[in-house]
């Protein structure tokens, strides 16, 4: 999902790194809190906090909590980790902006395992039926979760048809393509309905021993594995 974060923070979302609470900003909500290392890295690269702080991830007294905490780090818009809670908060923001006739846009990033949470579908139902077109969702369709592939644990297909049936505009893209991400967001802006962009992604892309292996979903590499991975990526 690094391509989505980079696209949002460096191009598509109106943000000010030196003023994270700028009231006119577009909101980026990470619902799938467990992928926060990529969010933290993007925020640091964008200047929200020093790059040197990235090394403190999950350490005691660090601002980089294991799952994001709203008040701990600049640029974090919601606390997340328990899956299913982000889209509802995106809806609340979108409702407030419509009420106040404001043009802020709300981006929300969900995992595919998160589609198994009931609250996610409560949220789809509300946003679709109320035409909250100021919401754009990205779904990381990498087909893995803690216990195996999503198809093994609890299949969520046909995901696009299901979300469309809830009143959403849906677009399926190659989630690793910057141009596809940009085009999809552009298309979303034309829709009168909220849009879900299903991003087909390869987990661990570019690292031969991690790619598409669900057992890497929740574990960090060892130091030597890290070196091997970095060599493969460069």
């Amino acid at each position: 999902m690094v391509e989505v974060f980079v696209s949002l923070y460096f191009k598509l979302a109106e943000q000010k790194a030196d003023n994270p609470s700028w009231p006119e900003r577009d909101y980026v909500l990470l619902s799938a809190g467990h992928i926060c290392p990529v969010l933290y890295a993007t925020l640091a690269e964008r200047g929200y906090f020093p790059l040197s702080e990235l090394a403190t991830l999950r350490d005691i007294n660090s601002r980089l909590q294991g799952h994001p905490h709203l008040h701990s780090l600049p640029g974090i818009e919601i606390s997340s980790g328990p899956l299913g809670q982000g889209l509802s908060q995106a809806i609340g923001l979108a409702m407030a902006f419509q009420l106040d006739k404001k043009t802020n846009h709300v981006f929300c990033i969900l995992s595919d395992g998160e589609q198994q949470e009931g609250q996610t579908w409560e949220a789809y139902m509300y946003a679709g039926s109320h035409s909250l077109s100021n919401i754009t969702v990205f779904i990381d369709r990498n087909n893995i979760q803690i216990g195996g592939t999503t198809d093994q644990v609890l299949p969520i297909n046909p995901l696009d048809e299901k979300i469309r049936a809830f009143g959403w505009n849906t677009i399926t893209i190659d989630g690793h393509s910057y141009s596809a991400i940009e085009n999809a967001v552009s298309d979303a802006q034309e829709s009168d309905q909220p849009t879900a962009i299903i991003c087909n992604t390869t987990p661990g892309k570019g690292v031969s021993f991690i790619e598409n292996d669900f057992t890497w979903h929740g574990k960090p590499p060892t130091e030597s594995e890290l070196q091997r991975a970095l060599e493969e990526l460069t």
Partner: protein
Amino acid sequence: MAKENNKTTRDGFGEALVEAATKNSAVVALTADLRESMRLDAFAQTFPDRFFEMGVAEENMVGAAAGLALAGKIPVACSYAVFNPQNAMGPIRTSVCYSKTNVKIIGGHAGISTGPDGATHQALEDIALMRTLPNMIVVVPADYQEAKKATHAIIEHHGPAYLRIGKFPTNAVTTESATFELGRATTLRQGNTVAIIACGTMVSEALRAAELLEKYSISVEVLNMHTIKPFDRFSILELVQQKKLLISMEEHQITGGLGSAIAEVLSELSHHPPLHRMGMLDTFGESGPDRELLKKYELTAEAAVALVLDEL
């Protein structure tokens, strides 16, 4: 004392919410298909743009409330307490309390006096659930007037709040001019021998018990503990000085609620009078008329009197 015996805490909430929303345009209300029952009709008619019908989806309601709060609104999320907080516990913990979003959780139909709907709809664990959450405050008004003041107070308080209300037409135990301060219990009656500490509908029963015990020349103090969190421990410490017996009364399980909060304070003392906790004894309720249920589950003045006479 003014008698407003047909009005309920939910009536007080609904009226005060309109007043608060008139004063403050940030106030918005959400419900999960319980608009009339949560006394939101007046709000919805007065502020149609600021009223959100979320459907039967309490988790999404609370999450959306958190989002509204992130945008500067003061969202008031309303449903029955068995659904809100109980169905929405996850979002209340993370989206509201951990993030410290300015969300007000309103739990209606609390307690066994909810009556004929039966055990599924009688919230008896909500105080315990809400009391353990960091950043949450917990308020249980005793009557119509106090519910109005409590509603204003939680809206003026910046941060998560839980307000527990019900449909039981309690006797008026407070007046319009009575002071109300979050976290400060009020002494409704002075006494020397016994103290009854009550919340919600049980305050009126506690006062009635005190009157009944006059016949036995037993002097009873009655404390209205309308705020369960932050807990007014000093009022308990003052109270225990010369009392022989303490009683807590609540329409809630005896674990985790008001009685437990009192016991926690007492446990820090080397000497204190015994505390008898009146409430639901680790059991669910059932269907029936409200007053008959209160009698069956021994949540009445008469039950308190019998207990005092037995213990002293």
